[in-house]
């Protein structure tokens, strides 16, 4: 069985984001990169399958700038067998990313049975790659999964919907599954695992190698800037009972004219 896990490297959640001076992207030089947290559930699920099926091969695939390959190394230290890296700018759009991931999976020569991703990446929150990838492969896909059971080529997944209800799907492999928090508890990469990961194979591709060119871009970014700073909140003192009516009228007035919420 061939399992692929697509992982993205995203800025650590504590990173202070600064747009570049020309507004074309964000400053990446001082960012500490981590594996996208939802992708950790994806990697863990692949490894859980491998535990019960030791013949399974788990390949992790990442697209991004090479600088450091934290996410791939972490995944291999957790137990993935090998990795592929597609060297590309960090601000590609979802379509190009999905096309490149498919290109790299095709290039591996291994027919995918299961492709796992996170349900979204916490940097651009586009929530599109798993679905586009599944379309390109012509595979079914289920996203936001919190439960996984497999018997042969039949997979039963649970998916969270609004209000906490669960939908249960039965799909057959090959399939693209996008993981949500709650699917499992991602393991730590152990120290021996970290050491072993250094010897595991990692293929490197350019965008051209996997068949992606500039013409594939569907979204062009016109600029990056920080959201406007929130003005400080206003406080209204209504402790004096005699003045309460007046204060309430003032607040209601401001909610109408200034905040325009009522």
């Amino acid at each position, binding site marked *: 069985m061939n399992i692929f896990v697509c992982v993205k490297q995203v800025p650590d959640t504590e990173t202070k984001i600064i747009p570049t001076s020309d507004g074309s992207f964000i400053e990446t030089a001082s960012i500490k990169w981590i594996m996208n947290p939802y992708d950790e559930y994806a990697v863990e699920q692949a490894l859980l399958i491998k535990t019960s099926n030791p013949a399974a091969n788990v390949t992790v695939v990442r697209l991004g700038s090479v600088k450091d390959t934290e996410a791939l190394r972490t995944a291999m230290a957790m137990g993935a067998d090998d990795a592929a890296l597609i060297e590309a700018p960090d601000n590609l759009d979802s379509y190009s990313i999905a096309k490149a991931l498919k290109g790299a999976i095709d290039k591996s020569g291994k027919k995918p049975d299961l492709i796992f991703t996170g349900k979204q990446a916490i940097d651009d929150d586009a929530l599109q790659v798993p679905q586009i990838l599944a379309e390109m492969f012509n595979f079914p896909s289920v996203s936001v999964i919190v439960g996984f059971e497999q018997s042969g080529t039949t997979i039963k997944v649970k998916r969270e919907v609004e209000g906490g209800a669960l939908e249960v799907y039965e799909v057959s492999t090959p399939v693209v599954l996008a993981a949500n928090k709650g699917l499992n508890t991602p393991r*730590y990469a*152990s120290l021996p695992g970290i050491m072993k990961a250094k010897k595991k194979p990692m293929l490197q591709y350019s965008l051209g190698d996997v068949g992606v060119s500039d013409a594939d871009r569907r979204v062009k970014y016109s600029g990056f800037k920080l959201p406007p700073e929130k003005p400080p909140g206003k406080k209204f003192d209504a402790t004096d009972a005699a003045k309460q009516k007046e204060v309430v009228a003032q607040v209601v007035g401001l909610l109408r004219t200034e905040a325009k919420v009522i």
Partner: protein
Amino acid sequence: MDFALSSDQLEIRDLALKFARNEMIPHAQEYDEHGKFPAEIFKKAWELGLINSCIPAEYGGSGFSGVDGVIIGEALAYGCMGMNTSFMANDLALLPIVIGGSDAQKKKFLTPFTEQFKIASFCLTEPENGSDASGIKTQIKDGGDHWIINGDKMWITNAGFADLFVVYGTIDSSLKHKGISAVVVEGKTPGIELGKKEDKMGHRSSDTRGVKFNNVKVPKENMLGKPGEGWAIAMSTLDHSRPLVASSALGGAQRAMDLSIQYSKERIQFGVPIAKHQAVQFMIAEMGMKIEAARLLVHKAAWLCDQGKKNTEVASYAKAFASDSCMQITTDAVQIYGGYGYSREYPVEKLMRDAKLIQIYEGTSQIQRLVMARELLK
């Protein structure tokens, strides 16, 4: 000269810090309050390869250097100095075997620690002999095909859970340090009597007890080195372990500084965050300066050891400087938190209680200065 950690070391540190943040910090307060031994956390850390860093690769260990060891130690102490005392006591007890054991002894005693989660205790201190360790009175008598141990040990970390004790005693107390010998005693050996768990000021999750050895028989092959070589093994153990103990002070100090920086930016007095008051800034600057200097000393003391160079003097600098700094820094952290710092609901008072022990065990800050002076005036 290169002050940078290798990429391996950065990864080791990141893993250990992640473990400290996710698995230790959230539980530290509770284990401290109830004096609960952190068995599950200890085991989890072992599963990740964070425990027993001193075991060489040929006996199943990870083959970490001393510098790797202090990097891990600092990160785990960042999570909780008290829990880290339990973790570190394993290394302290296994080091005499690494240093003074034969190949057969290493296979027999070290390898099981890499295959299964096990706990060890180092038994040097006695009720009447702490700093003056060469005066220990525990008797190791020749019983023909075995040794017979009789004596009282005091302040023994991990004693209540130990699968293995490394016990120092004397074959003849009139020989002073020339009579001191070290034997390995398996945890289940008849005649070992555990005292009650000490109710301590800090490091309350660690298990500390007196241990009595009443006619405890151990096989002849359990002695490390020859009779009378125990003192040399103990001194060499300290050269290896003092940087490690110092790294624990470093982790605690770093945590106190991180908390101080965070709190001082949030707490408003006189209309500004207290971090804007110069008196507070100076306390934080002092913390940063001491931590940086202590880290350099700790890394150097471990590095010298890795190079096979004598590090006795630098190890004492590191141990005394890091632990004295940790005491000052954690005290100032309480000061920066003000009244809140004095409350158990905030994390800094525990750091201050925990810091105190590091100035005491593994040679008090005074004994470290004796060692330094002895080396300097030689």
